[in-house]
């Protein structure tokens, strides 16, 4: 796509998200969609993180661990330390990023299915940890977490307290999609900068990359910590919406879904996980009509999609778009 075309696409997307969706919801009165779409936005942020680990050639089935971790960090800071939600949000992300550096240093040495297996276990480890610790209140979880308060700068209220909104979920919708746009903008810039090309170099051949002087272990950990930061942010906002968190708030099934969102949208495209999350979330709900066959149809369709469109939904594009597209196709190592 050319630059004007890209800007036009961006403008249409922002208009749709910030103007059209609230307008349609206001018209139809289906305010429950604010909650649904907030969830999609937050899951998309976490999936965007998983996508970045795919981008360096690692299959990450452990994002649920960081979503859960971020959620608990935010909840503990707000409930036990009396922090404002707005301060707990970046701290939750930073905590997850720091934890992922410690976890990532040893496990990122593994490749392929071995790395995937360890990350799969990670979600379960964090869940059991949340059950066992006293600060997380064990299996009873943490409930009645206060809503985000106001943001004031120099005595001027920029964002009012979420309790003052008539429709609480509408406020959360704007929060979620704003953070989602920021996260994906950051991700887009990353992938299109030289840093992104270094990540592709890792994905394609780590030995060759280190032979040219790239600090492969450090770059791998950098990508993984950004990924986990996204997971923590997504989890923290989720907890603020639900006003509660339990060890089962994010499970292995969620971790698997984050990965599937990336596959479905397309591993070669930054915005793949966003589309993948949207389609998968609503696809699953629509299949509810099918009753007992829901899971059967769902998994059948997923398998078929992976066979027919191995590069994801975004690989179906007009030819004129594809010419300038990245030549990159994710390669199994």
């Amino acid at each position: 796509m050319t630059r004007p075309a890209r800007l036009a696409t961006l403008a249409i997307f922002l208009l749709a998200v910030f103007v059209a969706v609230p307008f349609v919801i206001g018209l139809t009165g289906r305010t429950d969609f604010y909650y649904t779409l907030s969830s999609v936005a937050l899951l998309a942020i976490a999936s965007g993180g998983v996508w970045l680990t795919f981008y360096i050639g690692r299959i990450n089935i452990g994002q649920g661990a960081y979503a859960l971790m971020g959620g608990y960090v935010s909840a503990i800071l707000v409930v036990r330390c009396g922090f404002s939600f707005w301060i707990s949000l970046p701290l939750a992300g930073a905590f997850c990023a720091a934890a992922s550096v410690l976890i990532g240093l040893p496990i990122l040495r593994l490749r392929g299915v071995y790395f995937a297996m360890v990350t799969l276990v990670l979600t379960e480890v964090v869940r059991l940890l949340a059950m066992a610790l006293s600060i997380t209140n064990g299996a009873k979880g943490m409930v009645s977490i206060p809503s985000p308060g106001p943001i004031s700068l120099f005595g001027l209220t920029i964002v009012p307290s979420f309790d003052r909104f008539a429709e609480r979920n509408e406020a959360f919708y704007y929060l979620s999609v704003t953070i989602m746009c920021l996260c994906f903008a950051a991700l887009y810039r990353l992938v299109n900068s030289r840093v992104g090309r270094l990540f592709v170099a890792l994905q394609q051949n780590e030995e060759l990359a280190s032979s040219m002087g790239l600090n492969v272990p450090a770059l791998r950990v950098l990508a993984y910590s950004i990924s986990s930061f996204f997971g923590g942010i997504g989890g923290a906002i989720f907890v603020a919406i639900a006003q509660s968190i339990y060890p089962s708030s994010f499970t292995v099934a969620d971790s698997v879904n984050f990965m599937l969102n990336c596959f479905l949208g397309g591993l070669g495209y930054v915005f793949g996980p966003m589309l993948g999350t949207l389609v998968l979330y609503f696809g699953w709900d629509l299949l509810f009509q099918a009753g007992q066959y829901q899971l059967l149809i769902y998994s059948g369709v997923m398998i078929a999609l992976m066979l027919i469109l191995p590069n994801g939904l975004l690989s179906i594009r007009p030819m004129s778009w594809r010419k300038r597209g990245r030549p990159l196709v994710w390669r199994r190592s």
Partner: protein
Amino acid sequence: MAPILAISGITKQYGGLVAVNDVSFDVEEGEILSVIGPNGAGKSTLFKLIASFVKPTRGEVRFRGERISGLAPHTVARKGVVRTFQETTIFKGMTARDSVIIAHHLRSKAGLAGFYLGTAAARRDEATFGRSADEILEFLGLRAAANEIASNLPQGSLRALGVAIGLAANPKILLLDEPFAGMNHDETRRAVEMTRAVRDRGVTLLLVEHDMAAVMKISDRIVVINFGAKIAEGTPAEIQKNEKVIEAYLGVEDETIGV
């Protein structure tokens, strides 16, 4: 003059198997030195030991007096000891030009954050890398292949691409892994010319090679190893006359065919 690379008593054991046994030799600045030996002699292991892709059991490699064995491969590359790979090890999904540009990373003045934000220093780096990549590709006769995806390139171009990637990292000494393997006469002749041209740019070359004819033509000095140990060292003329070398290459075969 002090040697640019000093390998002393280097040994690598895999369990009970001694792959490289107490090998010592020096590489002088500006020369082309080849390590040869029959199949399974330990050439590849020795190559990985020098590039620090494998840690030695005993012994060490010194680059300009500084110990480099045991350091991470990327640290060794930063110091100026850069290895190339055989043609199967490339960035398959990238164009030749992009691969060479990436390989310039060592020379960047801007940090990762600078590249992310697109600072002036980062943009200058990008421009410099682009020009330098074009120059290297031209130098190695790859200009026509610059915008091809690497996996679509023929074998000969892939070898050259490997050397281009190595050169981009600005090496003082470049280690070439079997640069003439699987080439016909004509391709070998061109590769030999290319190797000489690289040396004339001021890069010291250490080759690990199988092709005797090419090695004799190109090398200033040759080190021969067999069963992991060094059996001879000298000029091509000396090596050709060396009894042990003749035995190593021909002796066993004589027995098997009953001559």
